[in-house]
């Protein structure tokens, strides 16, 4: 199976993670290239309230612009947008962000499924979605949609993930293009930079 996008162009990267994914993010971020020329959206499950913490942690580990996603904000290349705790993040056709306080999905808000599906619909075969460690099955349905629209599906290797359940569910139910150990991810993401 192809390990790169059919069109060769990545217009957006979406990363979803739950329990055990923070360590992976902290490992990936210092190695991300400053030349990344697509927006990165991050959806992680966490408790509402201490919202700026994750943003601050990641900000200190990369030269890319890291910010909490704001509603109606336009996605820009080289920016990392973090879905705020307690809101679903959707992407509009004009590449702006919509936030949504509707019912939880898979007991989660933000839900990874919601953002994967929305990004797949908008960016079709120009989106790359990565599912990391976690202990529920959020993200699986979303990855199916990404596949359907021709986007690229990457899953963290469940054998080396600190919580195997979420990536394992995805590996079982979705045909991923790649299963990656965390230390290979930054290199892969940097390889998505288009000319």
């Amino acid at each position, binding site marked *: 199976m192809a390990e790169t996008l059919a069109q060769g162009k990545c217009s957006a990267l979406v990363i979803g993670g739950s329990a055990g994914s923070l360590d992976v993010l902290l490992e990936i971020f210092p190695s991300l290239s400053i030349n990344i020329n697509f927006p990165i959206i991050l959806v992680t499950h966490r408790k509402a309230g201490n919202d700026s913490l994750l943003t601050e942690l990641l900000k200190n580990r990369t030269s890319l612009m890291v910010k909490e996603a*704001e*509603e*109606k904000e336009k996605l820009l290349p080289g920016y990392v947008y973090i879905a*705020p705790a307690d*809101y679903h993040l*959707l*992407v*509009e*056709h004009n590449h702006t962000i*919509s*936030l*949504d*306080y*509707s*019912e939880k999905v898979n007991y989660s808000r933000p839900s990874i499924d*919601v953002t994967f*599906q*929305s990004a*797949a*619909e*908008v960016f079709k075969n120009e989106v790359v979605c990565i599912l990391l460690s976690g202990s529920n099955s959020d993200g699986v*349905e979303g990855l199916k*949609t990404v596949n*359907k629209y021709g986007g690229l599906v990457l899953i963290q290797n469940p054998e080396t993930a600190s919580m195997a359940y979420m990536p394992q569910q995805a590996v079982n139910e979705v045909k991923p293009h790649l299963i990656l150990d965390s230390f290979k991810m930054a290199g892969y993401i940097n390889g998505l930079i288009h000319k």
Partner: protein
Amino acid sequence: MIIDAIDNEQVEMLLNDVLEAHGYDFLEYSHASIKRRITRLYSLDSFVSFAEFRYAVKTDKQYFKRFLEEITVNVTEMFRDPTFYKSLRNDVLPVLGTYPFIRIWVAGCSTGEEAYSLAILLRELNLLNKSLIYATDINPSVLEKAKKGMFPLNYLKGYSENYVQSGGLKDFSSYYTANYSLVKFDESLSSKMIFSTHNLVSDHSFNEFQLILCRNVLIYFDKDLQHKVFHLFDNSLEKLGYLALGSKESLDFWANAKDYKRIKNEKIWRKL
């Protein structure tokens, strides 16, 4: 849920039908959100074709009632964002307390949790007897629930924690009586509320207020519609009145934002 069961053109068609047949205008709602709501309802109610769904929405009054209830988001809670309520308690309501009479508009009140939270604050500051809370929503069925002031018992633990974090000092359970799986809030709280339907998209200003609360409603509107609603609020707010928005909403990019001053770290603005 099959996300692409309905395509963008069909969403447009359906929303045009809704406007023509029922007079509700959803065309300026954020597209991704409203599409997701529509797709969700379509699969929830197991329609076999879009044509059948469209026909039901257009012609079946009973089904349209459900449609309206389900495509608008009615998720809410009491004392949501405790620091926000703390700021209402410490910064806003004491100022309004100097007025002889307090008029508050909770726009998009859903099932009423925020209106009841506000009434509790007013009660604790001894202001409830000179206050009136106008609680409005586009959706008549949620207003029926709001009027009753009954909420599921299993949510109350979270509400009570929010209340304490927001600076509440009383025993939260003194405000309600539990009955099986529901609690009913004291009727003296709702005696100061007026419930009415109001559509922020198409209805006009109906009074002047000293405080307008509209939280997590504007996130579902596109930018143009948000700005129209800000004008509506501006026309409905007294000078030196307060406008309170949801934690991810902002007045910042609105043309008249300079006439408003924001309070500290909260999404509360004062009209200058």
